[in-house]
């Protein structure tokens, strides 16, 4: 994917509109997922998708493949999401609680994907989802952004610090704080 992204970027830089469409096709869903994890709001996430691809198009000439195209794109999306959430919160327009599943949502059963060679295969209910959403909502903006980029997008601490204009230490501690809060909220549920 990375190699073919590089090719598409090179073609798009040379003015090939179809090549940029290819990049939009490849990454719009993942940008939406990132935006939703950041904002917890569907409409805001759609705005983030549009704005991210517009900004990326405008700045394409300066993309130099030091990081993958996807990482570069997610940095734009994360910063814009952060900006949007700040503005919405400041204006009191939206609560990230919009992301919470409904109280009466049907119980959903998930098998958690494995991350470990000898993973625990656990079954989780809608109650866990609800608590995850609530806890993410309670994180500070910086904690949420750093955590989402690390946990869901697999970005390194170095990449996160660059994306958010933080020192590596500050990025690391934002992730630690987020994990601590999630642990406090979720441990009683998942260790039952």
């Amino acid at each position, binding site marked *: 994917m990375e190699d073919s992204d590089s090719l598409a970027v090179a073609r798009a830089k040379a003015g090939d*509109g179809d090549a940029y469409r290819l990049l*939009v*096709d490849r990454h*719009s*869903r993942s940008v*939406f*997922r990132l935006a*939703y*994890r950041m904002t917890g709001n*569907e409409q805001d996430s759609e705005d983030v*998708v*549009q704005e991210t*691809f*517009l*900004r990326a*198009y*405008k*700045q394409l000439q*300066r993309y*130099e493949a*030091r990081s993958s195209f996807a990482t570069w794109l997610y940095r734009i999306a994360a*910063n814009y999401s952060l*900006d949007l959430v700040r*503005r919405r*919160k*400041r204006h009191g327009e939206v609560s990230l609680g919009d992301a919470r*599943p409904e109280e009466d949502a049907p119980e959903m059963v*998930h098998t*958690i*994907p494995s*991350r*470990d060679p000898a*993973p*625990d295969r*656990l079954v*989780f209910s809608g109650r*866990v*989802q609800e608590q*995850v*959403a609530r806890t*993410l909502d309670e994180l*500070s903006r910086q904690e949420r952004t750093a955590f989402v980029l*690390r*946990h869901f997008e697999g970005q*390194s601490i170095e990449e996160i610090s*660059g*994306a958010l*204009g933080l020192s590596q230490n500050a990025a*690391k501690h934002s*992730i*630690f704080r987020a*994990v*601590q809060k*999630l*642990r406090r909220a*979720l*441990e009683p*549920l*998942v*260790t039952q």
Partner: protein
Amino acid sequence: MNHLSEEQLVLYYYGEAGPDGVEDHLGRCESCRGSYQALQRVLNSVDSFPVPERPAEYEAQVWRALEGKVARGRSRAWFAWKPLLAAATMAALVAGAFFAGHRWQRRDARAAADPQVRERVLLVAVGDHLERSQMVLLELANAGAPKSGALDISYEQRAAEDLIESNRLYRATAASAGDVATTSLLDDLERVLLEIAHSPSSVSGKQLEALRKEIEDRGILVKVKLFGDQVEQKEAAPQNAPSL
């Protein structure tokens, strides 16, 4: 035996632990292994956070909405106007609230709400203004140095020019309100924005480095972040919100 810290376990979970023997320790220490397994359960459960599915034709929908702007090269103008419009609206609100505050003070000494309204409007307006400024500064701070030739920063320049106008108004308003800290921050920011606006629209690696140094030396990104945190705290306690 020293046990592993939670931070070491988190770094190990994300594959960022250095070569400090975490794995060996986990193999030997039942207590740490238990802690790590508890952490794994929590972090694995986070993956259950639901994201709404997009329709099958989602990519086509996104492209349809983008196509016109991209194809006709209108994205630049679209970007340039959006923050400008927002800044102008906010600037008008701040000015309105500021002058209205003065009138209320003259007309009715009981209008206790006016300084609060003024501070609230200024708080929101300056916060938004700083966020837009931060985006421009971050773009420059993160831009890759051109390997050869020059880097086009004309978009950031245009954005900086727009921001300078609103910055001046907010600075004057903060100064009139006797808010020294905000005035000083906006003063610093204005110098950096002017530096960007007055740079060539295409910069060499050396010129880009000089701009970055200016941003770094003034510590403007850190100050803006700190200010944002303070604003957030004040907003969380609106009853006791002191002046900016």
